[in-house]
């Protein structure tokens, strides 16, 4: 059923809208592509647009790991058995529970977690993972974070490179 609060579009306006879309698809875009010097595909340009913000593509495997991370119930039991806490300073790393509830939430923030992720070893997390009531795969998440952190840093370096030019006089 149509929503009465949305004004109905008249046939002339609808026709004008459709014609404009057709013009964009059939004339403007092909011409733009014909004279463009950018050889990248649309997908690549889309990805490149987001790279400086630290947003990198997610594979099906990545999404599965994030779904597993979402099982965390924030009970903090993993922190009680986290061996890394004995070797990494608290200003750098606050415990295994950060992996599912903080670090894995946003790839743009991963470069800031770099010191913690570099200091963290998988063997630190083995017991934490074993006691987790909801079986959050902490070690898989740590591997995922390492991978994504590398991707984000690589992407950001690549996208930052063109701007490191001598200022125009």
């Amino acid at each position, binding site marked *: 059923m149509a929503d009465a609060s949305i004004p109905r579009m008249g046939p002339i306006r609808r026709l004008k809208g459709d014609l404009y879309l057709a013009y964009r698809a059939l004339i403007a875009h092909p011409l733009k592509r014909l004279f463009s010097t950018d050889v990248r595909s649309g997908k690549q340009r889309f990805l490149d647009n987001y790279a400086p913000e630290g947003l990198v593509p997610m594979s099906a495997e990545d999404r599965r790991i994030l779904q597993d991370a979402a099982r965390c*119930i924030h*009970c*903090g*039991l993993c*922190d*009680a058995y986290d061996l890394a*806490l004995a070797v990494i*300073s*608290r*200003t750098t790393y*606050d*415990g295994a529970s950060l992996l599912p509830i903080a670090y894995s939430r946003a790839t743009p923030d991963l470069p800031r977690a770099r010191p913690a992720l570099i200091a963290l070893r998988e063997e630190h997390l083995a017991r934490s993972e*074993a*006691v*987790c*009531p*909801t*079986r959050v795969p902490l070690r898989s998440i740590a591997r995922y974070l390492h991978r994504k952190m590398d991707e984000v840093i690589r992407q950001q370096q690549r996208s930052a490179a063109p701007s490191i030019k001598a200022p125009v006089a």
Partner: protein
Amino acid sequence: MAGSIAALRAKAKGAQVILSRRAFGATALSSGAVDVAPDPAAPPGDLKSQLVSPELAAREIARTRPNHPYAVLVDKLDRLKEALSFAAAHLPDLLCPPLVRNALLPTPLGTVKPAGMAQPAQAGADLASLPQSIAVVQLSVNPSFDAQLVARGLERSASLLGRKLSAAVVESHFFRNIEDALRGCYELAELLEQPGAIDEFARDLRTRLPEGVGALLLPPIMGRHGSSLAAELSNRLGGLPCWEILSDASSVPGIRLQEGLNSALTRAGIPVIESDVTCSKPGSGVFTLGSGESIEPRAVVLATGKFIGGGIVRTQRFFEPLLDLPLFAGSTRAEDQYIGDLLAENVQGKHQAFRVGVRIDSSLRPLGASGGPFDPRLFAAGSVISGYDPAADKTGLGVAIFTGYLAGEAAASLVLLAR
């Protein structure tokens, strides 16, 4: 808790036992005390009514809540104390014997909670027996514990109980490094176990204690392993009674309880296998461990917990993942019920969703779809059983111990009979 008690009881009866668990359950997240039964008829705020025998309160729950495990097992309720004593005997440094009446133990939220059994360092903090003047310790760098909240809450609760109580706050500067402010409760508890730490903590407190204080209440971080360090602190403070308040999650006393159970299982010679268990053909009695090994036990106690332990799962619908047992909310099937119909409108309401579980008969055998026992070799214990909310009903660990004890015994009897 339920699974460990069942295993210990079955072993004590002479059965050969293997305990298989996916991971730690909700016991490690508990307050560390055992809530057996509050008075269900007590009006909110009437703390005097809670000072009853847990057994009497359990009988009252059985009378007024027909789906509660205490009601289903009402004929066996005279063995409740026996079950609690059995648990206390297996956790000698960690649990006091069952209390004659519920103790009102302080929580970090400034409330008190009726408990039928507690850790030795917690039991003395019973609001009804605390001296008139107490002090609550605030760690200067621990933002997760608010001693003011506890002190004012205790004074208010004491007035509801009809007694006078004056609670001062003592700020300890024992933890003073900038890193200490970022440490979690488990780490702070471990730091207190370092050689000389408790002496230094006592020295720091001694200089700050107000005159005339009759007891000291401590944050629940008094030692990560074994029993609490509260007694040691008491010795260092010239015999001043020192008690630990209950914990919320993350819980150091809860971890102590869980590790105490692990030690009890080791002492009893019960192998613990940490892996997922699957059953490809429910009813066959054959289970596959995470290693791929198949086992066919003569009797099984299902003590898989509820939503935290993974015994009951809800992803769009409720289901029991191991044997696909029928689930009940009250007396009706729960699997396909709309979740909104099973939740109350306010937090303190009766949320049937958190009471969903398998239904048992009076022999603790889960019922199948036909209404009869699903498998005569299968027994259930703990929060996988329907009819109670282990987190909110204040009967959580009490039911776990009681049903674990009876289920372990029943499983062992079946095995020994077959021999």
